[in-house]
Structures are given as C-alpha cells and as structure tokens.
C-alpha cells in the first residue's frame, strides 16, 4: 500500500480576529504521494498559497491535521517546525528570493549548510541546473530564468523529500518557464520527490500528475493525469469524485 508523503485532513485556516476574520482555507482533505507533481490552481484569494504555507510549516492551521513526511505540523511548535523545514522542505519562490549579497554558488551552499549537508556539493547542484559557469555571479547579474534555476538548485540541494513551489514560472517568459518545469519534473522522477506547485499558469498542467483547482478556500476539482508510461502511448486525464471535489473532466 502506498503511503502518502502529505496527508491533509479537514484543514482550515482563518485570518484576523473574530469579528473581522475570514476563512482562507475551509476544510480541505487531500493525500499526496511521493514522486507526484501536484499543481494547485485557482483565482487569487482561493487559498492556494495559504495551503502551501501550511504544508511548508511556516503557517499553522486553525483546525484539522497536516502530516508531512511523518511530522504533524498542526502539533509542532516553532522549533520543531524550524527543524522540519530545514530537513524536509525545499522552497521555490515566485520572486526567486535569493540572498542578494551571496553568489549563485553561495546561495546553494547556505541551504546545504543549513541542512547539515556538505556544502561542497553546491557546485554539483548548480551544474545540475546548467549554471556551473555562473557560480560566481550575484543574483542581480543573472537573468530571471537563471535566478529561478538557482532557486531550484537551492530548493533541491540536500535532497529534501518535499518541494513547494509558489508561482515558479510567473516571472519568466514561456521558454524559461518550460525549462524550469522540465527541470522540476525531471528531478521529481529521478529522486521520488513530492512536488506541490501553486500557479496561475495553465502551461504548468502539462508537467503535473494532478491538478487541484481551488476556489474560496475549498477544492473544487481534482484532475489526475495518467502519463504515457502508465497508459500507453497517449497521456490521459482521469477524474475522480471524492470528498469536496465537485466536478470531473474527461481525458485527453
């Protein structure tokens, strides 16, 4: 039996005080398995980023349970969450969020050092995203696509089991976005990493195993993609109805 790397059960998140509060996430239940690329889509304010933040252990849920790689994030204190992030999570950000005073290589080395890994492998990580020649470049000397590839190398450094990406292609042109997603997909398949991508970019669907659509803090649709290697020559989209999934679509 496959064990999910992420198990979310009836999770809610409320912002603000009693009278002025609003619910960003309303009772989401979801399992995500190792080696899967799951894409969260939906309009702004639908709760995607809030859900991603809770999965990354940077935001606590208001109720419900979240288990990621065996850690119950709804129960962990600040120190435990910090240790969890350090060892289990790789983050990729829309605006890259590289440390501006460090070179590309040092940005990766710092993540490795935080994970207690040998920072000498930073060069290999940079090479794996095709940027070995830019090791000594500072973020402001790199193009948007190059910065995002450094961000990916940083997120993948030390092989965290879960990768959380917030709009990884938003600041990139189509070609660069495609390259970034190919890279993510490839690394996922190689290492069995669980990847969650929050995006508005419909082109990202192509690289996913599952597309989850959210609206108003709820999951409105889950679309599962059956890959060619799983279903013959042509990729298929299959649909299931479960929990708060309200619609299904046909395969391609």
């Amino acid at each position, binding site marked *: 039996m496959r064990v999910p790397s992420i198990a979310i059960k009836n999770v809610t998140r409320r912002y603000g005080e009693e009278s002025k509060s609003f619910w960003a996430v309303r009772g989401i239940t979801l399992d995500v398995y190792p080696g899967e690329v799951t894409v969260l889509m939906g309009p702004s304010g639908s709760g995607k980023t809030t859900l991603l933040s809770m999965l990354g252990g940077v935001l606590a849920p208001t109720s419900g349970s979240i288990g990621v790689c065996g850690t119950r994030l709804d129960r962990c204190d600040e120190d435990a969450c910090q240790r969890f992030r350090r060892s289990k999570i790789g983050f990729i*950000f829309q605006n890259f969020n590289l440390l501006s005073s460090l070179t590309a290589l040092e940005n990766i080395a710092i993540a490795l050092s935080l994970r207690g890994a040998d920072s000498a492998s930073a060069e290999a990580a940079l090479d794996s995203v095709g940027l070995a020649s830019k090791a000594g470049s500072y973020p402001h000397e790199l193009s948007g696509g190059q910065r995002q590839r450094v961000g990916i190398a940083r997120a993948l450094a030390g092989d965290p089991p879960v990768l959380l990406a917030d709009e990884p292609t938003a600041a990139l042109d189509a070609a660069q976005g495609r390259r970034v997603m190919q890279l993510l997909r490839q690394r996922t398949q190689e290492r069995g990493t669980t990847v969650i991508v929050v995006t508005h970019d419909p082109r990202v669907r192509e690289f996913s195993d599952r597309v989850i659509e959210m609206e108003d803090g709820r999951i409105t649709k889950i679309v599962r993609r059956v890959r060619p290697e799983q279903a013959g020559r042509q990729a298929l989209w299959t649909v299931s109805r479960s929990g708060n999934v309200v619609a299904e679509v046909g395969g391609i």
Partner: protein
Amino acid sequence: MLSIGWRNLKRDRMRAAIAVVGVVFAVVLVTLEVGMLLGLVRNASLLIDESRADLWISTVDVKTFDFATPFERRKLYRLQAIEGVERVEEYNVSYSVWKLPGGGNANIQVVAFDDQGTLAADLNLVAGSVADLHNQDAVIIDEGDRAKLGNPQLGDWVEIMQRRARVVGFTRNMRSFTTTPYVFTSLRRGENYGWLASGEREQSIYFLVKLKRGADVSAVQAAISAAIPDIEVHSRESFSWRTRRYWLVETGMGASFLAAALLGLLVGGVIVSQTLYAMTIEKLPEFGVLKALGATMLEISRVVFEQSLLCGGAGLAVGIAISHGLAALAAFAGTTIEIPVLLIAGIAILTAGLCLSAAFVSIWRLKRLEPGMVFRT
C-alpha cells in the same frame, strides 16, 4: 554557515560606511573626553606622583595640591628628629603674577623646591638643568606654557611679583591641572616670587619626607601626627588620590566629562542602531527566506551580530587612529590627552557593547518575523 554579515556589508557599502561613521563618532568622542580627563587628572597630581617622598606633610584638611595653606617652617626641625625619618625637604607652592611683555599679567603657580634636594619630582627638562636654578633669579617653565607667558626664550629676563627672573630651562608635559602655568624655582627664589614673599618668610606649604629603609610607614605617620600638632601626614598615594578626587568629584568635573562621553556614546549608538536596523529592514525578505529554509534565531542573530561587530571593529580602529591624531594636535596646542592601552581596551569593550545593543534592536524585529512572509513578497 557562510559569513552573510560580511557579504551584506560588502554589498551595501554606503550603509556600512554610515554605521562605521557612527561608531567612529562615538569612539572619538569617548576617547577624547576620557583621554582629556585622564590628562587633566594626571596633571593634577603629577608633582606628587613623580616625587620621591614617602610622605607629604601639609596643614589639616588640605583638599588638593593646588590649594594648600602655610604652616610654621620650624616644624621641620621637630620632624627631622622623629624616629624613622631619613630626610625632610621643604616644598612650596603659591600663586603669583607674571608680567607679560605687552603690559598685562598672567597668573602663575610658583613651585619652589630644594634644588640640591632629592625628593621633588623630576622636571623632565628639554632645555637647561636643575643645577641652573642655583643661579641668581633663575626660573624654569614648561615649553607648553610659553605662549601664555609671552613666549620667553631661554635666557630671557622676565618679571614676577615685581622682581626680575631669568628663564633658564624648559620642561615638557609638566603642566598644572588648573592650566595656570607652573614656574619652577629654588626655595630661596620662591620666597621672592610667591605670595609667601609678603611677610610670611617663616612659613612653608609642604614638607616632603623620605623614610629610612625598612621604616614602617604607618608607624612613622602616627608618630609625626602625635609629635606635631595641626598638620596632616599623607602617604604619596593618598595625597595623590585626594587631589584627583577633589578635581574629579568635588568640582563635578569628572561627572561632566563622563556625561559628555556618555552623550557621544548615546548619539553614536543611535546612529549605529538605526543604520543596522535599516539594513535589516531592507533585507527582511531575505531574513524571511533564511527562516523559511530552517535557520534558527541563533543563526540569524549571528548574521546581525557579525554585521554589527564588523562595523564596530572598523569604527574602533578608525576612531582610535583619529583620536591619536587629534591628541597629537592637542598636545601641540598645549592640551594633554592621555590614551593609555587600558583606555583603548575599555573603549573596545564599550564599542562591542554598543554594537551588540544596536544589533539587539534588529534581532528583536527579526524574532517577530514570520517565515510565511516569503510567500507574500
């Protein structure tokens, strides 16, 4: 972990420079204020500290070296008869007036001592010799006081208390706390040049006492006090401290110097603190990233402390160098600023404290930083 603090400073040179300037400001101000105070305090008790007397005898309740009152000279003979006393020398200090070439007057302090004796302080002469004081009307002044006294040259004739005097030597750094120039002369000339001249010839201000080898200082002190009424017996150290304490504490001057030094520290501290805080706020998203990546508060604090201490170290080095330069300039202008190694060590500790306190303001802000902010920037 990589040295992010150093790299942040390298990247944001302008802010780093402002923080360093803040530290330099504080260091220079504190060094000069305290150095000037040390210089003044050194001068205050210089003639006591540099003397070779074990005991100083004065009238009762003398508050400071500069303001002593006279007592009968004949007590000297009784003093010489006390067990344990090897040698006694008279030492007179009195205010007087030096006639300036332009017609005006300058107040002076005439220090008259036994020019054949061995107990008075060495004069640190740069011209002339103590033996020259044996000559008729001879006086020695400090080279730093020449301007105040009408720039007399070696061998020039001058007028003190309407009597002629001849400059036969110059001392270096033998200047009074009160800034009234010392005029060194022999006991005999001192009777002519000081206010003791006005019918008080059988009076003395101090006796310097050298004890016999192995004599018990306290016992001799007690014996002198018992034998001679209306005098006070001080050890050299206690009289030095009494003089310093008078100027530092009783005049409130020490407090005002320290207040100025503290003000400098405060202003420098605010500049450093604000600059570091601005650097931190500007890099808030990056600190958020570090938190999101799992950096502990200790690791994040290290970045801020590193920035702060590097600015402090650079500011300290530049500040001390500038202070030494200014002290040399001040010496040229006649003001003594002492910058001993101990003061530098104290200021280094103070600077580290200042920088660490400034860093705490930033760390306090970072402690409240939510790593979740990385998804909102």
